[in-house]
């Protein structure tokens, strides 16, 4: 008899989602000027969760003005006071973390295990970390009394909705900026709950403004003449468009964009941990992670045994109801994303790469994609070059460390990479040669508020996290 895990769903009753939400401008929830709304659905069931106001350019202008008004007082507050607001926010997030985890899982489709154990703890930690900086900026290495920039326009993606919000808002507020933030159109809810947290924390009105909407809302924020700082996390194509938009202005820009991370496994790797790292690297959050280890570069001499181990491990992944505490793989965030993953994997097959997935039953409603491996992949395959942003791993081989590095770097991206070997000097040598902003050796997909994160090359510029993350929001 097999050991079948009974369903262990987290209770939906932990969160109370209203039938509709407004924009959050100047401390108030308000309708869009043109009255537009859009629906947000649960990707695992396609159930409509709520109807959300959609910000237009008039709303953007109103929000920027509110942020500008708030900036004067907010930036003049003693850092120690700003710090206390951020500490309050951090604490409220901790208190409400179960509610927020369930909400995030419902709106995003990712497993509750991840929102509970990764997203939410990191969100709170990020606010804690930057709270402490607010009154210590003189000591951050940017000269005495570094000044904030003003109004920060921030556009964030749907893959880690609340965590990306934290990465943007925490350093912006700590340094004395005010914020107009647009959450992604498929995951607006946690940002709107965050607006409520700002109210609970007594944050002065206008310091944080949340404008749900689509790409045009984001474009309006980026282009608004009274925005001093633009921070964007999302696709490289949109990042380039933003860079063109802010050209010739004095707006400071940081971009955190796509990636095609190489996870390099040498023949002397700690194999069982490497297999876990490969799985974490590409199947964490259904692979919808910009720093995913989407290219496995395995030394040819251990290719077969590693693949066997990997396939065996993938067969134990549990795909299904994201609210079930035992679910490892949740839903793909949207029909559009699913279509993109599907198209790219079909192209991979058409180009001759060998496709494999474990036996895996997909739910009948919602957006689902089985964990997928491509073997016999070369650098020339589309699945080895394009960011798929889904649970799809391309497996390539190499013979020597030089070849591994050459292949790893052979991409316009440069966000992340992994190295697996028991030889310390090889780790250091390879890490040194990799053109990537984050290198995980004998681990993967680890994040921490103290640790700077960001890309080389077309993965963007600027760093989020750590002391480095302050620079994006200071006039230095």
């Amino acid at each position, binding site marked *: *008899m097999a*050991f079948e*895990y*009974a369903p*262990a769903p987290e209770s939906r009753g932990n969160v109370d989602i209203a039938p509709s939400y407004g924009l959050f401008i100047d401390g108030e929830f308000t309708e869009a000027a043109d009255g537009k709304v859009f629906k947000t659905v649960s990707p695992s069931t396609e159930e409509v969760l709520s109807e959300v106001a959609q910000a237009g350019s008039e709303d953007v202008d109103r929000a920027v003005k509110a942020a500008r008004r708030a900036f004067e007082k907010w930036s003049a507050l003693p850092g120690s006071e700003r710090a206390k607001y951020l500490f309050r926010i951090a604490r409220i997030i901790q208190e409400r973390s179960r509610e927020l985890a369930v909400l995030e899982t419902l709106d995003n489709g990712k497993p509750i295990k991840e929102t509970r154990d990764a997203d939410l703890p990191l969100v709170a930690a990020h606010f804690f970390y930057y709270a402490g900086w607010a009154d210590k900026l003189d000591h951050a290495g940017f000269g005495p009394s570094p000044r904030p920039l003003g109004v920060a326009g921030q556009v964030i993606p749907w893959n880690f909705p609340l965590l990306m919000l934290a990465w943007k808002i925490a350093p912006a507020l700590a340094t004395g900026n005010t914020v107009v933030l647009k959450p992604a159109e498929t995951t607006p809810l946690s940002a709107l709950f965050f607006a409520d947290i700002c109210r609970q924390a007594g944050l002065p009105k206008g310091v944080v403004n949340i404008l749900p909407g689509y790409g045009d809302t984001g474009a309006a924020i980026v282009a608004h003449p009274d925005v001093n700082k633009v921070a964007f996390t999302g696709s490289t194509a949109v990042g380039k468009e933003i860079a063109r938009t802010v050209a010739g202005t004095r707006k400071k820009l940081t971009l955190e964009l796509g990636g095609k991370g190489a996870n390099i496994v040498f023949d002397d790797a*700690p194999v069982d*941990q490497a297999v*876990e790292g490969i799985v974490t690297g590409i199947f964490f959050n259904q692979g919808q992670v910009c720093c995913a280890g989407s290219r496995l570069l395995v030394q040819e001499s251990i290719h077969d045994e590693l693949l066997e181990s990997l396939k065996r491990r993938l067969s*134990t992944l549990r795909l299904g109801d994201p609210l079930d*505490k035992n679910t490892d793989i949740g839903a793909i965030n949207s029909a559009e994303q699913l279509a993109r993953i599907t198209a790219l994997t079909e192209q991979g097959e058409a180009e001759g790469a060998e496709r494999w997935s474990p036996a895996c039953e997909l739910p009948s409603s919602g957006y689902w994609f089985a964990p997928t491996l491509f073997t016999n992949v070369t650098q020339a395959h589309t699945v080895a070059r394009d960011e798929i942003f889904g649970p799809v791993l391309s497996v390539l081989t190499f013979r020597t460390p030089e070849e591994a590095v050459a292949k790893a770097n052979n991409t316009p991206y440069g966000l992340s990479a992994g190295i697996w070997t028991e030889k310390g000097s090889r780790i250091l040598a390879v890490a040194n040669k990799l053109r990537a902003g984050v290198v995980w050796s004998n681990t993967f997909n680890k994040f921490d508020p103290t640790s700077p994160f960001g890309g080389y090359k077309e993965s963007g510029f600027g760093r989020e996290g750590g002391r480095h993350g302050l620079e994006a929001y200071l006039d230095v």
Partner: protein
Amino acid sequence: MPITASHALADVTASDSTLRRFLHGLPGVDAVGLEARAASLGTRSIKTTAKAYAIDLAISMVDLTTLEGADTPGKVRALGAKAVRPDPTDRTTPATAAVCVYPDMVAVAKEAVAGSDVKVASVATAFPAGRAALGVKLADVRDAVAAGADEVDMVIDRGAFLAGNYMKVYDEIVAVKEACGTSSRLKVIFETGELATYDNIRRASWLGMLAGADFIKTSTGKVAVNATPANTLLMLEAVRDFRAQTGVQVGVKPAGGIRTTKDAIKFLVLVNETVGEDWLDNHWFRFGASSLLNDLLMQRQKLATGRYSGPDYVTVD
């Protein structure tokens, strides 16, 4: 049962140097990654029917153990009775896998479990330190086997292992296995807390399996750190890989420190997701424990009745 050093790996044990090269050539273990994997499996939420299944399975895997200087025939008889019928109020409760005693108590234990499927396991080889001449250890084993022990739990010579004298450890296990004959299964205890590193635990696991262990077992329960999810996960990986290479299946027995149902279920999840259902059977997986059984029984009662049980509703021994 035949001696299981397989043909695939026969030349590995040809000499001290080949053995050393083989053991040192095993993939390294990253401690942080291993512990993180064990911890993440520990977050599985096992509820309702799955929990009922897991509790009964865990009860059936317990090697109910008493290894005290103060052990008496009376104590061992009581232990045997409890092993055969863990919950006198509920006859559907499965029996434990075995009772585990010192060699001089084997005969008493055999009598106590007579007529049931419960096995008698005996520690031997100068348990727990293992610091005795080979002849003494073998006499200890023969004693236990002669008294009817179905299973022998030997300790390896950690001193020899740590000194790099792998062949000595190997030879001893082979000799003990031989002394067990065909009727007694051999469990090889590494005392993982004394081997100290995960790399050593992996090497010891392979060494034990190469020498013919039927089971590999974490610890004696007599040192500070005994079974942990991480060292058990590592040993499960070893038996999985050993079977893949040789076709020979070896059992795993974490022992010491597993006291609650919650802990036990975590270990079963490790088994389930590392080696799968082939090992989800008391022929291949055991818990070396004494107080665990009562917690399992209380949880079992709680599932049956819906209310929390108390220590007065399970037998002290």
